[in-house]
């Protein structure tokens, strides 16, 4: 197996140089494991992390005589996804066998859908860097079973097979070749990722392989209608890797063509350690999967009543929620997008706003700012946040009512984050209450003015910049607690003399 047929190497900088000449064409095949309790064709549990083969029964092991029985929950989830991308739901979809030999494929075939997938023709809108929206076509989404895993480490000369994953339900979401850059591909992938979690049909865990994708990448000269020869990059399991793999692959292909070569149609594997893609098998070595309808399973009939029942369970979708946030709370499209990136984040934000309805913008800034930073720093999911919406809203309330300044609030927030207590306790305990008594502020101003005659004279002589010096000195004297607005006003008056 050739490691790489590109001996020159592929400086990514080439990309920028070639942007004028070359257009990238990308289609994604996303595999999302469905969050059913049991497998798609057997009663085994699907939980991740069990000891090898602890969750593989006779059906998963492909024993002689056993038969698959379709898990209705998986069908419901696929339909839910279809409805959420505005797709056609196939009234009678058909399971087919994809035949190939591999040790982690116990039956010697994967049960998938081929000619008649359950979900056909949908779409997903993404926002481009310039703020414009772009519609990405979704060709189809079909149900299938996941394969097991081969284990090559720690077993000496042998390889091991873990069939816990075998039979876990998947939907494979196949896009049209509509994406024109790695960024678009990542934006699309992220939106699908957000959507499946909103729908609660997939946990989206990319490290555990619950959500992964293959990228079909080709390049063509700008203005050329015909697609270039594509390479399929297999099993990419992070957003960052998708971007890197595509960049590498695009540069590789351009390089080949510009050196007078031809891109081969092949399957390639992305190696995140080396940051490169390498050939797995060529078109000639590709399997002939000999698809045919699985005679062990009846066609899946989905009627209007079932669709209506599933439609009733659809939550507010990310795009709908973002539009509502923007309209109702006066947020920018960008902020609304960030706050709806997950259902939990959106819910959290809304809970905060409910408690401090007078200033949604303040709530948005804090949830996206301090809170997001703290969560990120500690690697905590918003659903498990140390501070609930009420605590955060309590803090914002104190900013709004002038008890503390925004700057002090950050200090209060940090104390709340480590202690888990409420804002008022921290403010009281640390004596951080803002000084809004004009007499007290004036007294501090007078003291500062008294010990800074030089600066005062310069200021009065026209050195306006020194205003900042006086603000700083008074703040220092009051431990940062002086009400900034009041301080400004009083200081101006006093300095003017």
């Amino acid at each position: 197996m050739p490691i790489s047929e590109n001996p020159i190497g592929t400086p990514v900088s080439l990309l920028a140089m070639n942007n004028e000449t070359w257009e990238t064409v990308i289609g994604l095949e996303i595999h999302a494991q469905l969050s059913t309790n049991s497998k798609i064709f057997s009663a085994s549990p699907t939980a991740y992390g069990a000891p090898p083969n602890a969750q593989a029964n006779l059906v998963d092991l492909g024993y002689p005589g056993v038969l698959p029985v379709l898990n209705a929950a998986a069908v419901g989830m696929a339909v839910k996804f279809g409805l959420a991308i505005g797709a056609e739901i196939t009234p009678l979809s058909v399971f087919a066998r994809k035949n190939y030999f591999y040790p982690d494929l116990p039956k010697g075939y994967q049960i998938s859908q081929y000619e008649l997938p359950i979900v056909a023709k949908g779409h997903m809108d993404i926002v481009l860097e310039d703020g414009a929206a772009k519609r990405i076509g979704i060709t189809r989404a079909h149900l299938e079973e996941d394969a097991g895993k081969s284990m090559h480490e720690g077993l000496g000369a042998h390889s091991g097979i873990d069939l816990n994953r075998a039979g876990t339900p998947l939907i494979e979401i196949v896009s049209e070749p509509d994406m024109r850059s790695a960024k678009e591909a990542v934006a699309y992938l992220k939106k699908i990722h957000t959507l499946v979690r909103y729908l609660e049909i997939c946990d989206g865990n990319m490290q555990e392989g619950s959500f992964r994708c293959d990228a079909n990448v080709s390049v063509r000269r700008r203005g050329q209608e015909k697609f270039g020869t594509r390479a399929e990059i297999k099993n990419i399991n992070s957003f960052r890797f998708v971007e890197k793999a595509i960049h590498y692959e695009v540069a590789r292909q351009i390089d080949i063509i510009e050196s007078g070569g031809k891109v081969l149609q092949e399957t390639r594997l992305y190696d995140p350690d080396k940051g490169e893609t390498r050939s797995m098998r060529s078109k000639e070595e590709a399997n002939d999967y000999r698809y045919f309808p699985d005679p062990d399973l009846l066609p899946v009939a989905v009627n209007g009543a079932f669709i209506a029942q599933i439609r009733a369970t659809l939550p507010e979708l990310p795009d709908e929620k973002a539009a509502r946030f923007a309209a109702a709370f006066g947020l920018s499209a960008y902020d609304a997008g960030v706050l709806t990136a997950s259902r939990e984040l959106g819910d959290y934000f809304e809970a905060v706003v409910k408690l401090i309805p007078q200033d949604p913008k303040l709530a948005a800034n804090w949830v996206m700012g301090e809170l997001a930073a703290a969560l990120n720093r500690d690697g905590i999911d918003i659903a498990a946040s140390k501070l609930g919406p009420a605590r955060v809203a309590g803090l914002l309330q104190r900013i709004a009512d002038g008890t503390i300044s925004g700057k002090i609030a950050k200090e209060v927030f940090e104390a709340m984050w480590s202690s888990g207590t409420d804002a008022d306790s921290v403010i009281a305990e640390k004596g951080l209450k803002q000084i809004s008594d004009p007499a007290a502020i004036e007294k501090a101003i007078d003291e500062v003015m008294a010990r800074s005659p030089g600066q005062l004279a310069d200021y009065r002589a026209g050195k306006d910049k020194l205003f900042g010096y006086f603000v700083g000195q008074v703040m220092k004297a009051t431990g940062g607690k002086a009400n900034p607005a009041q301080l400004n006003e009083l200081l101006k008056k006093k300095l003017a003399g």
Partner: protein
Amino acid sequence: MTLHTKSLAALAAGLRAREFSSVELTRTLLARIEAYQPQLNALITVTGPSAMQAAAVADGVLARGGAGPLTGIPLVHKDIFCTEGVRTTCASRMLDNFVAPYDATVVAKLKAEGMIMLGKANMDEFAMGSSNETSYYGPVRNPWNPQLVPGGSSGGSAAVVAARLAPFASATDTGGSIRQPAALCGVTGLKPTYGRVSRYGMIAFASSLDQGGTLTTSAADAALMLRAMAGFDVRDSTSVERAVPDYVAALELPLAGMKIGLLKEFFEKGLDRENERCVREALAVYEKLGAKLLEVSLPNLGLSVPAYYVVAPAECSSNLARFDGVRFGHRAKDPKDLMDLYKRSRGEGFGAEVKRRIMTGTYVLSAGYYDAYYLKAQKVRRLIANEFEQAFAQVDVVMGPTTPTPAFALGSKTSDPITMYLNDIYTIGANLAGLPAMSIPCGFVHNLPVGLQLIGRHFAEERLLSAAHAYQRESDWHTRIPAGYE
């Protein structure tokens, strides 16, 4: 007391009346198996000790009065049905060492009825064959003449019943594998409607065609067995959710006025004259009993054999992919890599006929050939099903011969698979259309039994069984026992 010739109903009555015990009955039949197995080779595994234990348990149940109609009655299972803790070989070297970890639904149901398993019947390897000559364990001999084949693939099951080694043997029928051996061995075979009996635990040959059924000495016994075996199974999506009628009560359905369709194509070229004579005589009996005979035609029936030999191998090529030496079954010694493990495990484990069908099936599903073969065969299949439907608009039951000739000599067709395949010409249609069908003894040619085939509408097993039963009240062909086995 000749226990081995009694019907199931008579055995049940005798057991309840304590005329004999299940232990006695079981011991008698095990002794017969021991005596005749060397000349017949009808069984692959005999489970004597566990049978005797189960019989003792059954006697306890009988004594306490909690017995059902089949409690304590021995049976033999075709070795295609998985039996927990008992080797299940499918007559293949591939599964020579395979002890099934679970019971097939049919096995579990009959076990729950209190039936006693005497052993596992020989068969064609993976049910692929029409003469029982593809078995890894050697051919089964026809009890009527040891130089002849018993038919296949359920040759062992048919021989067991014909030789009166058990009153019932389970069997499966993918293209005639119950009816053809029933005809060649002079017993009663019933292939139910596709979906009537669960396929769970029945090692798959061609999933869309395989159907479990019965081999017995009479239609009355078949009714008793089907009542116990049939029914929806949550573990088999292709089993049908439909109430199981009382097939025993249905035996008495009146025959008068029944319309019998004589399938024109069944009586055309290739049918042995003497076979035809027996079949026509049987039809005359039906006429005498008040049935009306009409000619019907299935113009495309001739395409059934080629269509079958595309669909069945296609499914088999996929179904048998799981036998790869990795998890169970035959595993090649010291493989040097994965490909070597696959190639040698399968190369050593499968016999020639199985390999032939896997290769045919792989070919017809391959890119570029799928439309020309598999898809076209499916169209033919639909066409034949439609033609049957049209025929059943005019008649209640279709009748004709089960096979073109009586039993043929061992080795006479093994060198030419096509000739062997053509032996299934009358039986394949019912499988392609999913229809219930039976074969019952209707005479003898040169001291060899001839079978009359009855094909019914979907789920019309009651009609078939009652028609067969009516005939068996007028005839004694089904009571004939091969010389030496009385």
